[in-house]
């Protein structure tokens, strides 16, 4: 009987063997997850971050490029720092920084390298590289830093910074990882996908201690990093910097557009700051200083600030009036029967004269005719229909619309329609007499400097515009986005522009802007004064030149500077001359504008009266500190204490 037990025994042995075979089959053939885990174990994916694309101006000059820098990484479990004091001295950090950085790194992962010090310059790197050999657990990683050839265009270009937690969570397809850089504003944000390039992936083998053991499969699966696309702007760096200098100690904007293409030639948002200060490892500190600055240097005024257009608006009123047939070029109006005041000027018997002298009653009448153009006898109903009709025509000039510039946060502005007033007054409870201040660009109208520059471009083009844009060429093939090649029509026939342009030329030659005319260049311009309840009015001027073959259309807004002729017109005309001739003849005017300080007139929130010039100079946040020493930045250097960076 006992002999038969051998079958039980062999059966048991075979059963165990069978179970093991099944288990092996499951582990090795059926369950795929182990091979993936093995890869993540010993095969490390190393991401190569390519250089961001560079940005050029219209003449081929570099505006933004990359400087190689070095990040210092630490693997806490492997870190051996015997002489902490010397270590801190070498890196120029203090003991408590060392402790907190180490603690942060250890909290992230004791086994994985995490950021210890960020963005060491080549010089810093060279000086500490030799010493670091003595300390194990530290390694350098190459990285790059945005660098700007000139301290200009800060708001247009935007800045790049570490991705925020919410951005990281919100991304639709997971591309970015923690501590990746991403364009946060301006061109850097809008063209992030083009600028960032294609990340390269290298598969390398590592042992259990994470030590590099060579490429995996001889690098067959590796992909090369592809540098980001270069961007070509329409910016004229020389003109831009000249405009910058004219806007020192002023709050406002300069926007210059090439009318024939819609390219932005210059875009000044004053006060500004040196973009380099946000591209250093002192980013957080400098950004905080800028954000605290009461003059809001981070506010991109050309596309975000809202003003009433003032008299510059009369140009569009005249054009729409002519197109609608409510006036002819020879229509004349007197000051009679008008609730609005005007200054003393010769009779305005034509459209051109009306524009030239910026006659308020003239445009009161034009607007009145536009509103009551229809055959409705009830003035309330007529006003309602008339306003919506006017609204449609006005919209074609981009008023109250987003133009679609390639910059973030473009302000739409406000162009009132029937619905808008119905909300205030109730339907058919308002009529022309309630809204006539729109006729001269006041009232509920809100525009941005960009929109008015575009209006100047429309007039220069006699009826059409291309969406204003900063980037007019992506990559080596200089690809232009199709929306920037699409011609937008203003709905006004070219012939109607002649009398308006005639009036604009007159305004510069002998009208409201005569003091800033430029010898040898025919400039067509129009001043505006945007009423400001808080203090001095904003000075506005829009223009284009040369009048017969326009190459530049410009809008200048200077806050608290008074009438259009006082600050905006001179600055615009100096910029036009600089752009067209590369020199400036009226040195006296240039000198005056460079020195002019309208910043001290700015009434800051919470401050009742404008602070006097003298006292501003002593204040920590003065005009100077914003432009010349922007927000007292910490310049990157080895001697300075670096800002702690969390991994």
């Amino acid at each position, binding site marked *: 009987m006992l002999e038969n037990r051998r079958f039980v*025994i062999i059966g048991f042995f075979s059963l165990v063997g069978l179970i093991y075979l099944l*288990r092996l089959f499951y582990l*090795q053939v059926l369950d795929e997850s*182990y*091979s993936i885990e*093995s*890869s993540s174990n010993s095969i490390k994916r190393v991401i190569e971050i390519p250089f961001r694309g560079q940005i050029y101006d219209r003449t081929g000059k570099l505006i933004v490029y990359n400087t190689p820098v070095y990040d210092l990484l630490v693997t806490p479990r492997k870190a051996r720092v015997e002489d902490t004091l010397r270590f801190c001295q070498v890196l120029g950090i203090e003991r408590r920084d060392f402790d907190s950085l180490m603690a942060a790194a250890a909290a992230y992962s004791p086994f994985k390298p995490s950021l210890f010090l960020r963005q060491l310059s080549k010089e810093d790197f060279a000086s500490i590289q030799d010493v670091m050999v003595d300390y194990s657990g530290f390694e350098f990683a190459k990285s790059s830093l945005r660098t700007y050839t000139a301290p200009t265009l800060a708001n247009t270009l935007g800045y790049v910074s570490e991705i925020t937690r919410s951005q990281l969570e919100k991304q639709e397809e997971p591309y970015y990882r923690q501590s990746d850089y991403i364009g946060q504003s301006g061109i850097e944000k809008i063209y992030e996908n083009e600028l960032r390039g294609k990340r390269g992936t290298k598969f390398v083998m590592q042992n*259990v201690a994470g030590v590099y053991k060579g490429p995996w499969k001889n690098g067959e699966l590796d992909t090369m990093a592809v540098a980001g696309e270069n961007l070509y702007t329409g910016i004229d760096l020389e003109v831009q910097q000249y405009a910058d200098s004219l806007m020192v100690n002023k709050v406002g904007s300069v926007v210059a557009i090439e009318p024939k293409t819609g390219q932005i030639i210059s875009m000044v948002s004053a006060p500004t700051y040196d973009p380099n200060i946000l591209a250093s490892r002192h980013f957080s500190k400098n950004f905080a200083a800028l954000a605290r600055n009461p003059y809001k240097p981070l506010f991109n005024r050309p596309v975000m600030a809202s003003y009433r257009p003032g008299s510059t608006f009369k140009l569009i009123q005249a054009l729409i009036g002519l197109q609608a047939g409510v006036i002819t070029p020879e229509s004349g109006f007197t000051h009679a029967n008008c609730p609005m005041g005007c200054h003393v000027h010769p009779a305005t018997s034509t459209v051109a004269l009306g524009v030239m002298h910026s006659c308020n009653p003239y445009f009161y009448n034009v607007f009145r005719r536009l509103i009551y153009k229809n055959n409705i006898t009830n003035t309330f109903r007529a006003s309602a229909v008339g306003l919506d009709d006017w609204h449609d025509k006005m919209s074609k000039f981009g008023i109250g619309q987003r133009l679609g510039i390639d910059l973030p946060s473009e302000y739409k502005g406000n162009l009132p329609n029937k619905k808008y007033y119905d909300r205030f007054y109730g339907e058919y409870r308002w009529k022309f007499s309630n809204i006539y201040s729109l006729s001269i660009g006041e009232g509920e109208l809100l525009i941005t400097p960009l929109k008015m520059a575009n209006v100047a471009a429309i007039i220069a083009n006699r009826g059409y515009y291309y969406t204003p844009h900063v980037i007019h060429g992506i990559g080596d093939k200089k690809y232009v986005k199709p929306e920037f090649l699409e011609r937008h029509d203003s709905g006004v026939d070219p012939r109607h522009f002649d009398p308006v342009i005639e009036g604009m030329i007159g305004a510069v030659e002998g009208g409201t802007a005569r003091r800033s005319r430029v010898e040898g260049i025919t400039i067509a311009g129009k001043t505006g004064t945007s009423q400001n309840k808080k203090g001095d009015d904003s000075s506005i001027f829009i223009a284009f030149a040369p009048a017969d073959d326009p190459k530049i259309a410009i809008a200048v807004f200077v806050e608290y500077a008074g009438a259009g002729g006082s600050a905006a017109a001179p600055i615009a005309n100096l910029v036009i001359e600089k752009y067209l001739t590369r020199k400036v003849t009226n040195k006296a005017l240039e000198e005056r504008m460079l020195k002019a300080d309208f910043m001290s007139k700015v009434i800051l929130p919470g401050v009742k009266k404008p602070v006097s010039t003298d006292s501003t100079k002593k204040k920590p946040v003065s005009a100077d500190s914003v432009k010349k020493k922007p927000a007292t930045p910490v310049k990157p250097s080895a001697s300075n204490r670096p800002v702690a960076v969390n991994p």
Partner: protein
Amino acid sequence: MPENKPITKNVDWIVVLIYIACLAIGWVNIYAAVYNPEVQTSMFDVSNNAGKQLMWIGTAALLIVCILVIDYKFYETFSFIIYAVVIALLVLVLFAGSNINGSRSWIKIGAFSLQPAEFSKLAISLAIAKYLSDPAISLTRKLKDYYPIMGIIALPAFLILLSNETGSMLVFASFAVVLYREGMPGFIPAIGMVMAALLIITLLFVKWYIAGAIIIIAGLAIWIMPVMTRRRGGLWATILVSLVMIGIVFGVDFFMNNVLQKHQRGRIMVLLDPDSDPRGIGWNVIQSKIAIGSGGFAGKGFLQGTQTKFDFVPEQSTDFIFCTVGEEHGFIGAAVVVFLFVCLISRLVILAERQRSRFARVYGYCVAGIIFFHFMINVGMTIGLMPVIGIPLPFFSYGGSSLWSFSILLFIFLKIDAQRPFTLSRG
């Protein structure tokens, strides 16, 4: 005279070929396990484990020649003396042993270390075989005949326990195979297996659920039983068994927390859920499973294993050598190894059964049981079916002591088997 026939004629070549195949595969995989792409050394270089293993294989060959030359009666005659020598060595190692990895179980002779515990299996096998060769002894009838066997096993087990080498001690459970074959009632190993199963089930599920399940099964059994057997005794037996099982279920907690040491408890918990301690005790199991699992059907290729080459799996060339096979040669390679072992063990059982003397049969079963137990535990732990117990895979794992002891163990049996035609049947 038949006695003049060379041993090569009578030795069982199937076992010898399997033995050679195991050594060859083991040696190649030891080389793969220690292979370092940066510092490449030859398979024959004695500075690495593969080279050393080759040396151990060579010396093992010499030992085998000696074993085959020595008269087969020597082993039976000197069984108890060999046992005594090994016991003496085990005592000696407690005082003169070198401390390696926390266990004082090695005797250093020059550059080489020997582990007497490895040879205790051989000694116990011979001693049990010798003891059972007395035809008067019956394991079916007399309980007192078990006592000497218990003593034979317990003495070295106690000494090994003192030197902190519990892994080797657990292997003694393999003698259950031979005792079962020689007449031990079947319920004893059955109880052992049920206990182990209950232990694991208890750790996986809520105790009350298991108790409920046992009661339901018992109830079903009682309900069906009268129809089947019509015996009253069965009812009480079923109730008793159920109560004992429920007792075990609730005793497991006590056993786990109060009887087992912390690292032993950890090893059992990791078996159930390796992720419970991924960087500690679970590390070996997780990494080993990843290594084997990533091998796929055909494996990554010789020297291409990333898991094993870069030291993710600890004790790669010794206890976890099976990982290298699994990773580099895939399911095919692993299946070949499993197949070789099942063949070897089954062949040993067949050989044991054809012995005329009880001594030879018992010894043969001892060899089969020991090799089987090593195989079951070692391969089982690498694929996550057994707790991590540091015992080598016979003929595969790197190490002179284990290779020597298994070779001696096996070839003594082959020698006895080769002389089978000339032995008189006594049992």
